[in-house]
C-alpha cells in the first residue's frame, strides 16, 4: 500500500467520525449506550428443550420442508446407516474433514475417502462427489445446521464446492431457537448457517433449489 493513498484515508476516518459527532448534537453528552433501552421481550427459546425428541422432530420436519433429506437413526445404527447412505450417493470421491469421528468414518469405502490433509486444491474439491461432516449446532425452529470449522467440519470450502453435503447431527446439538444457538456459538470462528440446499428466489420470486452451493443436503440425526 502506498503512502499516497494512506494519507487521505487517515483524514477520512477523522472526518467521518467528526461528521457523526456533529450529526448527533441532539444526543446529550452524558447519555451512555445502555441508557437507550432495548426491550428483549421476545422469546429466548428453551422449548422444546435442547436435545429432546420434540426438538429433533421439529428440526427434521423443517429441514425436509426446505428440500433436505433427513434420516433419524439410533446411535447403534448410525455408522451403518451413514455408510449405506454415502455408498448410495453415486460415484466420485467423498471428502472427509480432519477430526471426523473414526467410528463413522470406518463405514465409508476407504477407496473413495479423500482427506483434507494437506489441504485439497479447489479443483480436486470440484471433482469430489460429496462431503461428509459433523455440525457445531442445529436450530430446530428454522431447520438450520451450523458449521464452525471445528473437528469433523473442516474449512468452509469443503462443505461448499462438492455438490452433495451429508451432515451428521447429534441430538444433543439440536436447540429450539436462534437465540439459544447464537449464545452457544463462538463468533471468533467462521460460521456457516445452512438451512436446506442452496436455493434462489430470483426468478419470479419463486423458490428454486440448487444454485451454487451443494444441491443436495442430507442430515443424519443420531438420537
Amino acid at each position, binding site marked *: *500500500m502506498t503512502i499516497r*493513498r494512506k494519507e*487521505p484515508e487517515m483524514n*477520512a476516518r477523522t472526518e*467521518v*467520525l467528526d461528521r*457523526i459527532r456533529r*450529526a*448527533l*448534537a*441532539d*444526543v446529550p453528552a452524558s*447519555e*451512555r*449506550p445502555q441508557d*437507550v*433501552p*432495548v*426491550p*428483549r*421481550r*421476545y*422469546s429466548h427459546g428453551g422449548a422444546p428443550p435442547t436435545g429432546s425428541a420434540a426438538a429433533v422432530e421439529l428440526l427434521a420436519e423443517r429441514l425436509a420442508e*426446505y428440500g433436505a433429506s433427513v434420516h433419524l437413526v439410533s446411535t447403534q445404527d448410525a455408522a451403518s446407516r451413514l455408510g449405506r447412505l454415502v455408498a448410495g450417493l453415486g460415484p466420485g470421491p467423498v471428502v472427509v474433514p480432519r477430526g471426523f469421528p473414526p467410528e463413522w468414518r470406518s463405514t465409508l469405502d476407504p477407496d473413495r475417502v479423500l482427506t483434507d490433509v494437506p489441504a485439497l486444491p*479447489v479443483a480436486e474439491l*470440484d471433482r469430489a462427489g460429496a462431503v461428509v461432516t459433523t455440525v457445531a449446532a442445529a*436450530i430446530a425452529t*428454522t*431447520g438450520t445446521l451450523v458449521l464452525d*470449522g471445528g473437528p469433523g467440519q473442516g*474449512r*468452509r*470450502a469443503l462443505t*461448499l464446492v462438492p455438490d452433495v453435503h451429508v451432515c451428521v447431527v447429534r441430538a444433543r446439538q439440536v436447540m429450539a431457537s*436462534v*437465540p439459544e444457538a*447464537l*449464545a452457544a456459538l463462538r463468533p*471468533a470462528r*467462521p*460460521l*456457516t*448457517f*445452512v*438451512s*436446506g440446499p*442452496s436455493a*434462489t*428466489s*430470483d*426468478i*419470479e*420470486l*419463486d*423458490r*428454486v433449489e*440448487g*444454485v*451454487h*452451493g451443494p444441491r443436495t443436503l442430507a442430515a443424519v440425526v443420531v438420537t
Partner: protein
Amino acid sequence: MNDATFLGMPAFPAAAAGALRDSQLRGNLARATGTIRSRRAAAVSEQDDWEHLREAGRAVKERTLRHLDRYLLQLEEKVTAAGGTVHWARDAEEARRIVVGLVQDTGEREVVKVKSMVTQEIGLNDALADAGIDAYETDLAELIVQLGQDHPSHILVPAIHRNRAEIREIFLRSMGAYGTAAPADLNDDPRRLAEAARRHLREKFLRAKVAVSGVNFLVAETGTAVVVESEGNGRMCLTLPETLISVAGIEKVIPTWQDLEVFLQLLPRSSTGERMNPYTSTWTGTRADDGPRAFHLVLVDAGRTEALSDPVGRQVLNCIRCSACLNVCPVYERVGGHAYGSVYPGPIGAVLSPQLRGTASEVDRALPYASSLCGACYEVCPVKIDIPEVLVHLRARVVEDGRGRLVPKPERLAMAAARWVISRPARLTAAQRAGAVAARLVARRGRVGRLPGPLSRWTDTRDAPVPPAETFSAWWKRTRR
C-alpha cells in the same frame, strides 16, 4: 453529485408514466410481489413474538445510531485485532478509489462480486471497468441485470421486472460473451435457468483471487461481519478468493453478538418469507487455515451522516434492506423500481435517496411524493421505520427549500401518480389507512411540531390540487391502448 442517480433517469413522474405503460413489467411485478407477500405473511404469523422482535430491532438500531462513533471505533479495533484492515470513505468517489486501489495492489484484473447495495450506490463496477478490471456479479438476479445491461429494480431481486422467458433470452444471448455459454436447448424452466447460471459462474468462482462483497451486519463487540444469502454465491466469494474486500455503509454496525439474534430472525422472514435463508456466513478478520488471507473492510459515509443529523430522518438508517416495504407498496407495484431513479427503490428509496443525496435534483425532490401515505410499509417494516412520518417530514423540507412555491411541479406530478394508484378498487382502504396515518401524526403533534415546516403546511401540501392540465388518470385513459 450524481453518484447514486441512474444517469439520465427521468424524475419519478415521467419514469412512472413510462413504467405504467409497460404492461409486461406490471404483470411481472404484480405476480412476483403477490407471491412474496403471502410467503412473508405466513412466515411472520408463525413467529408469536414478532412484535417484540420488531421493537427490539428498532431499539438496537436506535441505540447504535445514537452512539455510532463509539461502535465504529470498537468495530475497527476488533476487525484490526483479528487480522483485517479497516478503511474509511467520506463519499462515493473515495470509496471507489479505495476499492480500485486494493484490487490493483493484488495485481489481479478480475473480481467476483456478491450482491451489495452499497457498491451499486457508489457506482463501483464502472470505476473498476475504467481501471481495466472485470467485475462479475454472481447473484442470479444481478447476473441477469448485468448480462441484460439493465438497471436493478428491487432490493432483494434486482431482476424482478424480468420474467422467465426474458431471462432465458438474456442468458442465451449474452452468457457466451463473458464465459461459459448457456446450453443451446435452454428452456424457461427456472431450474434449467439456475443450472445455466451455476455452470456459467463456476469457473469464475474457482479461479477468483479477489472478491468484493457487501455485508448485512457488522458486530462491533466481536468485529464479526455477516452476509445473509440464498444461492451459495456469497459463500463462494467469501471463502475461495485470497483477498476479500467488503464494502459497508457505516450504519451496518450493531453493538453485540447477542443483537444478531434479533436480526437473524427478522430479516429472512421479512425478506424472502423463509424461516431462515439457505446460507448465512459470519467471519471475524482472517484465519490462517480457512478463507481469504487478506480482509479489507471499507466503511462508507456517502451521505449517511447527513441523514443522521436529522432526528426525524435518522430512523431510515435502521433499514436492513429486507424489501418488505417494496412488496406491499401499491405505488411500487404499479410503477416498478426503475421509476425511483436510484438503487434504492420503493418506499425505502423514497425516504433514503433524498437524504443521502440531498433534495437538489428533480428526482430527489419528487421522491417524497411517490407515495399515497397508505402506511402499509410501516406495518411490515421489521425495524419499525415510520416511513409515512419521514415522507411527510421530507415533503415539508422540499417545500421549505422551494421557497414560496407551495408544491413544485415535479412533486405535484408525483403526487398525481400516487393518487392515481389509490384511486382504484383499493381506494377506500388506502384512504382509510392514509387517514389513520394522519391521525397518528396529529396525535403526536409535539414531535411533528418540531419538524421544519408546520403541520398545516403539510396538510395544504397533501391536499394540493392535481395539476390542471391533465391528471394522471386522464393521461392514463388517453394513452392506454
